[in-house]
């Protein structure tokens, strides 16, 4: 599927709106010539953002700030596309193409949310602790409201379960296990692609004395330990690949 195909659909007299046709362009990097200027964010831009968020989330060892707006926006688009699809006849050739597209987008969103949930469960204590710190400093929280709720419930459940397990000796210090929890390995190595010119990234090799500096050129690719670039990932200056 390429751009010209997306255009073709728009030209046809069938009543498919632009939002339906636009995401069929598979090459997200290309500017969609069909999209109107009045929209703040075009359909393909939303997908592009979602895809970048998904990749970042997938490859970063720790949880990243949530992108609820993008998720909601894309979900809205998907249901809009699905509604439009209902109106098409089932033996229409276009229908299968668009249907496939909605499935792809659905996978993108659900996979993104699933990865986040997995991290929330795995690093539950660490994430909740960081959230508390952020709340105290009045910083923006990384978890969405729903995720935070889920994280808290998960913690409660696990504690309840462990308390049941350890209830055989009432005087047992119950808090011991809470001190040792699973943390993400921030020193793990990631592949990344720079989106802008960045100068003077300090390579954090766990040795404070010699912080080597490195410059990223626009579009250059690197393998680097995650903690050196975590800020850049969160700011969106680099893309994990």
């Amino acid at each position, binding site marked *: 599927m390429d751009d010209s195909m997306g255009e073709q659909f728009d030209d046809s007299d069938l009543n498919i709106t632009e939002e339906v046709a636009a995401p069929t362009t598979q090459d997200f990097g290309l500017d969609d010539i069909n999209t109107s200027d009045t929209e703040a964010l075009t359909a393909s831009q939303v997908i592009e953002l979602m895809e970048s968020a998904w990749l970042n989330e997938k490859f970063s060892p720790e949880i990243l700030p949530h992108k609820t707006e993008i998720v909601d926006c894309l979900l809205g688009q998907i249901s809009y596309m699905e509604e439009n699809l209902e109106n098409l006849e089932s033996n229409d050739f276009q229908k299968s193409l668009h249907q496939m597209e909605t499935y792809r987008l659905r996978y993108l969103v659900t996979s993104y949310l699933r990865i986040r949930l997995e991290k929330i469960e795995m690093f539950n204590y660490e994430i909740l602790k960081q959230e508390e710190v952020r709340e105290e400093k009045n910083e923006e929280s990384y978890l969405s409201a729903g995720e935070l709720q889920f994280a808290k419930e998960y913690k409660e459940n696990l504690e309840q379960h462990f308390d049941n397990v350890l209830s*055989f000796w009432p005087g047992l210090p119950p808090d011991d296990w809470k001190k040792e929890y699973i943390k993400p390995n921030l020193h793990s190595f990631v592949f990344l692609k720079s989106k802008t010119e960045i100068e003077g990234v300090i390579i954090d090799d766990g040795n404070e004395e010699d912080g080597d500096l490195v410059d990223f050129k626009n579009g250059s690719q690197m393998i680097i330990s995650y903690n050196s670039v975590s800020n850049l990932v969160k700011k969106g200056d680099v893309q994990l690949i």
Partner: protein
Amino acid sequence: MFGEKAVELVKEVNRNKDSLSPYNTDLIEQVNKEICGLIEQNMEDANASIAGSSNTAAYIPTVNVRHLSVQRNLRCLLSYHHNRVRCLRNMRWEFGSLLPPEIKSNLSSSEAAWFSSYSTSLAKYMRSIGDDGGVNLGADMKPPKSLYIEVRCLLDYGKHQLGDGTVILLKKNTRYYLPRTDCEELIRLEIFEHLIN
């Protein structure tokens, strides 16, 4: 030696990483007993050292060893349970909120309680996503390759309604060419087998 039974528990869970073995009540009780015994002995010694002032220092090494054994046992115990919980969690994603009976019988009551509350909070979270009624994260688990897939039915399932409303009769060893979304769950429940040419 202290702690051996507890290590046995960890080994057991390590041996069956993907499946849930029966909850090992016997061994856990033995470990619990060991921990209780160690704590009691420690308390006795502690009381003795307070009461009789003579030679308090002589107690310290034994008390220390016992204390460390208790810590180690607890850690193994928790590791056993935590890994089982992780496994159970994967099963929630695989089978949905209803577990097959053969797995259910392997759970302890506390684990069953954990499972149902996990299911509840997961369902609650899924409902909270998006603006209209939530998203089922249990669907679309794999990147889609094609709209229709070829499947073979592995057992006499009976009638099954497809997404578009048509009802088909699923018989053992019959082949179908169906929309992927209709098959996904049935494949996970091992009613269908995905045929890849």
